[in-house]
């Protein structure tokens, strides 16, 4: 069925369009963009007063399936994605078992397809079982559908293994994504190292733990020519290193989470694990550098590091509680709160155009003939209520926060999968 998104302000950085337009989608692809499009026999989404953008892609989420479905499933994660305004996500391979075989990747894709909500792009393990020793079968995984490789959640300790991985996989377009934390420097830290950790008597991880690995990985990227993406940068020095690597011609990119842009390491006085995350929330100097890094173009991508956990797991003592929290359903508003002065076109690049380009996946554009993946959002304040999350992970340090921007409707392949606060399941009769 034809879909017409009526009357919104269409912003598509890929084509330079920023005007009130209707968007028509037929057969799953954008068929026409113009004024007063014919909507006879079409389903109409009213976007009056809203912004219509190429579908947002979150290239860093944890969907927990297989193995940890009490935290999240591909279906609940995909529901959270579309409710957060994302038409596609790239899921990290730290499942149980890790995504290091074609059969596992195929199963992820099958379940994503069954859910019928967001597009799901698996990221393959960088080393077998994420063990940091043996190389994963990159060609087999790429053929199965992996769009990148990463041992996210842990850092490949051996520079030798990482260099060999990058050399072996250098003929593949799929980028490497590094989680950068030196295991020795990090030790058993539960937060950032600094004044608050000293005062609270908690073990802190220094920014240096990230910086030394970012430097190493970018040097390996230079040595091997492999395009390299630094996940969730959290320090000023990391950004300087990315700038330095680019100045030497390294194909380096990086992403930033909403929590590193908005929150500081001052959230542990109650010794609760709500804000426990890797890399940890840093001090103001680093946060300010990250905001500047978005504005000056050093940071390419917004990515949430959506990391759902059970409530009881997060309620444990700080040392035992798992790291991370849900991010998909707060991201759009949180980034807007962090960067109110950044033009919408630039925000959409970071949310959509750039992740599509880095992963080499369809989308990131509303040009006629491109996939009918559309994010519709509005400058409308709302208050986060974690109980309303579609994600199984009902944890966020942003619960109760008010954000200035929110998703209104999400369209994937021409199907309205989220509208009026409701996720539409494939079998549900679609009512306008």
């Amino acid at each position, binding site marked *: 069925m034809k879909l017409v998104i009526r009357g919104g302000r269409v912003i598509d950085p890929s084509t330079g369009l920023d005007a009130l337009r209707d968007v028509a989608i037929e057969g799953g692809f954008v068929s026409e963009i113009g004024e007063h499009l014919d909507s006879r026999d079409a389903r109409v989404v009213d976007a009056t007063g809203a912004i219509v953008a190429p579908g947002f892609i979150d290239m860093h989420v944890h969907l927990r399936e297989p193995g940890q479905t009490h935290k999240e499933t591909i279906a609940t994660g995909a529901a959270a994605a579309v409710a957060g305004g994302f038409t596609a996500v790239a899921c990290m391979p730290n499942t149980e078992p890790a995504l290091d075989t074609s059969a596992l990747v195929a199963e992820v894709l099958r379940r994503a397809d069954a859910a019928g909500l967001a597009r799901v792009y698996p990221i393959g393990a960088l080393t077998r079982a994420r063990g940091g020793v043996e190389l994963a079968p990159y060609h087999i995984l790429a053929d199965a559908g992996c769009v990148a490789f990463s041992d996210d959640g842990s850092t490949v300790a051996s520079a030798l293994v990482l260099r060999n991985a990058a050399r072996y996989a250098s003929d593949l377009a799929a980028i490497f994504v590094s989680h950068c934390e030196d295991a020795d420097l990090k030790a058993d830290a539960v937060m950032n190292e600094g*004044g608050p950790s*000293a005062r*609270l*008597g*908690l073990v802190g991880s220094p920014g240096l733990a990230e910086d030394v690995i970012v430097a190493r990985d970018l040097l390996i990227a230079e040595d091997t020519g492999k395009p390299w993406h630094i996940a969730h940068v959290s320090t000023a020095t990391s950004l300087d290193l990315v700038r330095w690597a680019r100045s030497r011609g390294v194909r380096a990119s990086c992403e930033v989470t909403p929590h590193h842009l908005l929150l500081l390491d001052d959230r542990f006085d109650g*010794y*609760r694990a709500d804000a426990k995350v890797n890399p940890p929330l840093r001090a103001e100097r680093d946060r300010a550098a990250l905001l500047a890094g978005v504005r000056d173009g050093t940071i390419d991508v917004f990515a949430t590091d959506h990391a759902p956990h059970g409530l009881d797991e997060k*309620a444990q*003592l700080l*040392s035992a509680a798992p790291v991370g929290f849900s991010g998909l359903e707060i991201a759009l508003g949180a980034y807007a709160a962090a960067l109110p002065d950044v033009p919408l076109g630039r925000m959409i690049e970071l949310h959509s155009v750039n992740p599509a380009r880095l992963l080499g996946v369809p989308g990131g554009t509303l040009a006629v003939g491109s996939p009918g993946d559309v994010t519709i959002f509005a400058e409308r304040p709302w208050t986060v209520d974690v109980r309303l999350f579609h994600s199984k992970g009902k944890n966020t340090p942003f619960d109760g926060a008010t954000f200035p921007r929110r998703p209104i409707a999400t369209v994937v392949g021409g199907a309205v999968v989220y509208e009026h606060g409701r996720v539409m399941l494939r079998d549900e009769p679609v009512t306008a």
Partner: protein
Amino acid sequence: MAARNLIDVDDVSPAELVALLDRAATYSETSPGRDLLAGVPVLNLFFESSTRTATSFTLAEQRVGADVISFAPGASSLGKGETIADTAITLHAIGVRIIVVRHPESGFPRRLAESFDGHIVNAGDGTHAHPTQALLDLMTLRNEFGSFTGLRVAIVGDILHSRVARSNIVGMRMLGIDVTLVGPRTLLPDSFEAPGVRIERDLDAVLPEVNAVMMLRIQRERIVSGLLPSLDDYTRRFQLNRDRLRRLRHDAVILHPGPYNRGIELTDDVLEDPRSRYVVQVHNGVFVRMAVLAFLAAPAYAA
């Protein structure tokens, strides 16, 4: 009003802190009697072994007439599945009204207090806080100098891993005491610098300037974990010994939270030195703990 706790020294106001020390001093002269907390159920919950602190608390509780229950579970015996909140609610339902808790993880008492409808007294949590130790140190200093005005105190050693140091820094700053921290950078990172808190690396230079020096216990595992090269190397700069005692003022006092390691952070000369107050500190511990219990739970208490 929410129940009061003593998880760190700053759970009380500066005025309440002084009143607590006054109260402790009074109790050291005259026992308040066993009616003070008659029948109040107090649970000593020690997840980490302790001889001196547990004994001192127990005696303090008995002297004010509390019903004392002591339990020393292993650190891991909070069953998997039972949350901290469940434990707190269960203990209150049983009838416990005050929990004196020691735990190897920083923050455990704070988390327990979130869900416990009674009073929590921290008897030491991880590397975070040990407020009654700080109170007894402050009581010892006041006995010695009469007031806190203009006092300068050095705390020497493994500040990073010391809950005693942290609580003393908090308490001393509340009372306007000038604090100097001394130790190698691996055990005393620059992040401890704060208003009224100075960091020095040269113990010899600090000793002549202070009214009191508190020597912290040095643990041998700091060598294995790469924070110290050897005890010999540490003692060369930071041990209080016969030579360094000569640099300390005649009217200064030496404090140690115990148990001390002879030959490491201090030598036998220090223990024999007339300026050493270790025994006085331990003695004062019972009175400050009686005062804390009274402050939190005695109906007749008025600061």
